[in-house]
């Protein structure tokens, strides 16, 4: 069972019910559950969208698109049925926040799905979890069944005359399916290859119908926003970055865990105060601030607020909120290698620059790490990554190229230490086995 952590600096909104037994529907109702949904039914779509817009909530998957705006893009009239799709394909290395939501507060996801459905006029929602989350699927399935039993889902929900169905399922192991259009492909029983955009999902999405697709955390936040009011939620965060967010702090910290911090919270404080700093008196070497695809920060760069805009200014991204802390004992070439191996393994293979680019990066860095490279290979690695940036079919190419460029730029000296047969100066160098 994943360990829950707590810290006084946290502002618990979305994690409010963690550890409270809220997976049981009655307990969830006791903790204000399904009140937001009923309010949403009463007050109607315009109100929901207005509150969501006022909240300043931005997509928690990583791209940070304003949620209220996204919902408002769905056309009111549509020949084809509309859908809500919840992206619980949490797969970005360093990220495990949705894991806790499904575990501790499954009804928040269901209620959020229902609210999104009411907002756009959908009659059906899908909650898609990554394939590894089978035990969480069981929890979700039970929660959905309980909600049906109570009349919160299905025909005539809450006696309102409105119908809303929810189907839950998992994937089967594919990071790329976290990309929204690839997720829709997967849900339609196909290979998880992204779709050409435009058209965007809000217009042509799942089964060709207008679709709202949101990250599980985003969706689970919606009921809280309706309960506390959009403006109140917005106030918790910084300008244009409303509310709080679940940050998963992992790696070399004293108290790794998922913490709910207001948007804009200082990264350095998050590491040193909230998560207790670096263990064993070691020095900090680097921080990957928002999941493995976000460019690395040096210790001198971490005095920065955790929101979309401040992180962008710092030359990186807020990403998925997975803060990975790296101490001085780590070989950054090995870290870069482990990162690129992941993207090479997960590239869907659709487009040339991503498919071939990730493979060549992996091969080149592997060789470099083992000492088989010369100086111009470092330039080649950077050349390759830079030529992938912005040229691939979907953002996975960027997700692989960006951190690589960052590692080469900021740790070039470490790359150089490996050259000309020297190999890795760090003791824990290991054979790479993932194929």
């Amino acid at each position, binding site marked *: 069972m994943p360990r829950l952590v707590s810290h006084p600096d946290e502002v618990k909104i979305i994690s409010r019910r963690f550890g409270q037994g809220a997976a049981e529907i009655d307990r969830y109702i006791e903790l204000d559950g399904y009140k937001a949904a009923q309010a949403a039914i009463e007050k109607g779509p315009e109100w929901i969208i207005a509150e969501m817009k006022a909240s300043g909530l931005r997509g928690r998957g990583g791209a940070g698109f304003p949620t209220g705006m996204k919902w408002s893009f769905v056309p009111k009239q549509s020949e084809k049925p509309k859908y809500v799709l919840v992206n619980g394909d949490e797969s970005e290395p360093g990220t495990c926040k949705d894991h806790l939501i499904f575990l501790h507060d499954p009804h928040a996801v269901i209620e959020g799905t229902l609210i999104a459905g009411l907002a756009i006029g959908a009659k059906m929602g899908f909650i898609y979890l990554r394939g590894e989350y089978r035990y969480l699927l069981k929890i979700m399935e039970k929660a959905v069944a309980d909600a049906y039993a109570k009349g919160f889902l299905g025909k005539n929900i809450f006696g309102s005359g409105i119908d809303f169905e929810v189907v839950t399922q998992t994937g089967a192991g594919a990071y790329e399916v976290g990309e929204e259009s690839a997720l829709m492909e997967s849900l339609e029983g196909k290979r998880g290859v992204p779709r050409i955009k435009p058209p965007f999902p809000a217009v042509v999405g799942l089964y060709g119908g207008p679709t709202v697709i949101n990250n599980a955390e985003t969706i689970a936040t919606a009921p809280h926003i309706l309960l506390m009011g959009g403006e109140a939620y917005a106030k918790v965060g910084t300008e244009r970055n409303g509310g709080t967010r679940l940050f998963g702090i992992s790696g070399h910290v004293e108290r790794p865990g998922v913490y709910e911090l207001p948007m804009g919270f200082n990264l350095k404080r998050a590491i040193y105060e909230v998560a207790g700093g670096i263990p064993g008196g070691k020095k900090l070497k680097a921080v990957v601030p928002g999941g493995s695809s976000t460019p690395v920060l040096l210790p001198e760069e971490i005095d920065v607020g955790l929101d979309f805009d401040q992180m962008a200014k710092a030359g990186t991204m807020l990403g998925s909120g997975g803060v990975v802390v790296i101490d001085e004992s780590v070989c950054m070439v090995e870290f870069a290698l482990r990162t690129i191996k992941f993207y090479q393994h997960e590239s869907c293979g659709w*487009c040339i620059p991503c498919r071939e680019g990730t493979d060549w990066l992996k091969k080149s860095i592997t060789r470099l790490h083992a000492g088989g490279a010369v100086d111009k290979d470092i330039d080649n690695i950077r050349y390759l990554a830079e030529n992938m940036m912005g040229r691939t079919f979907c953002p996975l190419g960027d997700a692989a190229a960006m951190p690589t460029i960052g590692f080469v730029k900021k740790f070039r000296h470490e790359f150089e230490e490996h050259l000309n047969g020297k190999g890795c100066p760090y003791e824990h160098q290991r054979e790479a086995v993932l194929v």
Partner: protein
Amino acid sequence: MADVTFTVDGKKLTAPAGTLLIDACRKAGIEIPAFCYYPGLSLQAACRMCVVRLEKVPKLQTACTTPVAEGMVVTTESDEIKQSRKAILELLLGNHPLDCPVCDAGGECELQDMTFKYGAAESKYVEIKQHREEQQWSPVVFFDRPRCILCYRCVRVCGEGMDVWALGVQNRGVSSVISPNGEDHLDCEECGMCIDICPVGALTSGTYRYKTRPWEMNHVATVCTHCGDGCKTTLGVRSVDDGSEIIRGDNRDKSGMNGDFLCIKGRYAFDFTTREDRITKPLVRQPNGQLAEVSWEQALEHAGMKLREIRDTRGGSAIGVIGSTRTTNEEAYLLQKFARTVLNTNNIDHHRTADYASFAAALQGKAGRTASLRDFLTAPAILLLGNDATEQHPALAWNIRSNVRQNRARLYVANHADIKLHRQAKSFLQIPQDGYAALVQYLAGNEAGFDGTEISAAFREALRKEESLVIAFGSEFRGRDIQSLVDFGLGLPNVKFAALGDYANSRGAADMGLMPDLLPGYVPLAAAKHFGEEYPSLPSAPGLDMLQMFDAAEAGNLGALYVVGSNPVERYGIDPTALKNTFLIVQDMFMTETAAVADVIFPAANLYEKSGTVTNTYGDLQLAKKAADKAGVRTDFELIVRLADKMGADPKKLVPFGRGVRADMGQTRGAQSGEADRHAVWLAANNLEPKLSPFDPFAVFDEIQRLVPSYNVSRFELLGGQDKQTRSDLVQIELDPARRDLVLPANDTLFTSGTLGRYSRMLHSVMESRTTKPAETAAD
């Protein structure tokens, strides 16, 4: 859609809104590189070669997925774009085997061309390349995985284009691989479209692999010899010891009515031309009963003398002639003229695979009512009655599928079987095998005799609402049924028709009068006045039809039978002993069942070895050009003329050569050759070319155009390689209502082609390799 104006590389362009940028640019002569984009197939945006810069858009965009928009400003070449494309190529080449020197695609490879253009030859990656063995997926299809650049063209053309869906993509990332449906082999229609469309040498064909380099071939554009669709094909030929052989067929330039489509027969089944058991010496039966090789002179002399003797002693009515569905129009015409004016007989027929005569009768005087094969690509609605086009008219099926896919054409199918085109049909009606006539009555509003259902009512309803319809019907329709179908169709607003018959020149054989009762152009013998000059001694009584000839032979009343490119003994199940008292002359490539009992056999050339014109089943007239050559064989045209000569006839009367202007043709070689060629083309186009030889088919074509008005099409365009529709309104015909129905459908499948198909090893090996063998054909 309304036009929009936009700027590309400083040039102002206009195109209908929604046009893809890549198409708009190409149309304006601005070439944008592309691997994955292929016109007519779904968009992929996978290769990223077509990137361009759009003003005010942060990232480079793919021109293959960007629709043009008003005011759009585009840059298609810049350092940034060049670099982006170069990087893609470097990545591809990093894992590409670069075995260009032995690769089939070498010299016509899109990857080579682009590497050359973008200068991406330097290898940035020193890692070892993955080697994988080449795989054979079928007798036709080979796959060399490391060469594949994953453009998915093959997957799409097989699925979307062919509706076969035999290819897929498996695994992911760098392990992604194109996979056949049988795991290690293909179960498919073997059309070779996937090979054709592959931009590199990853898919290669069994017939062409490692045989030659593209630049060692000559390319000749001609017409497929197999089915009645008349696909345009470009044959790649190269010199060999005994002539020149065909090693490839494709239609990459999309020049014909078939676009880039060819079925397995057009693409691969030319191997009969080089079979070692082809007859290449004239054979004459000796007193001992054995066939022996003799000289041309002896064989012609012998045959001519015998024919003359029988004509002179027993009269022309004791001689029969059977023509071919695969010779040119000129040959068919010449053969019947020879029969009628030299042999003095109307005993002439051919293997009829559709009732073109009734069709012509039904449409006479009605202009613009025949559908070209092209019409099936654009018609808003199509009605297919009978026939399994996927098997019997693969190009028609291709055009229908493309039309449904690209233009959302509405397809209505009525058939006694659940044919594959059902999948494209908006409405499908299954009817009893003998229910076609009743169906037409039903469609026309006459309920009797047809078990109407809700489905059939809806079918009829929808059909009647169509404002423009093309009707294709199979050989299920004959005689009066064709008349009623046409009557029904003419009641709808805007209808065109096509009668589906089986072989490359089935239509031409009928048009050219290979029939006992009808002259060229379906002119009844009784109405032949305008034939007077060319046919001075035309016998006026109708001759014997195919079956009557064999009856006459059996009864001892047929002194001689002259069979050109046909195998009636096998086709009609004739007991060969019926011919024991008949002097039999056969012109053929192979020792067919008919040839085996012949007294004289002349080795003949096939359609790929001669020039002339052919008419597909839709009445589209096309030029066939000589591509291959085989020492020892002669064209049917030449053989007929020589035989006439040996019989003492005046070849000049038969073939009006030596007319035209006198012209100084100048040099045809050396520095001035281009000049002379242009001169000749101009003369030919204006029907002024000197026809200097009795073996010149165009001398006969002159006469055809004079006597058969429906063939009076633009020569210039015909010679330029275009297909020209013959006209239905210009035939004059009066059919004897008691005329016998002698239509014998060939029932060929994708992998059979009558007697000819039996001599293609390629077709055989495909049939043998198929896990589910197609049903035996009825008549072959």
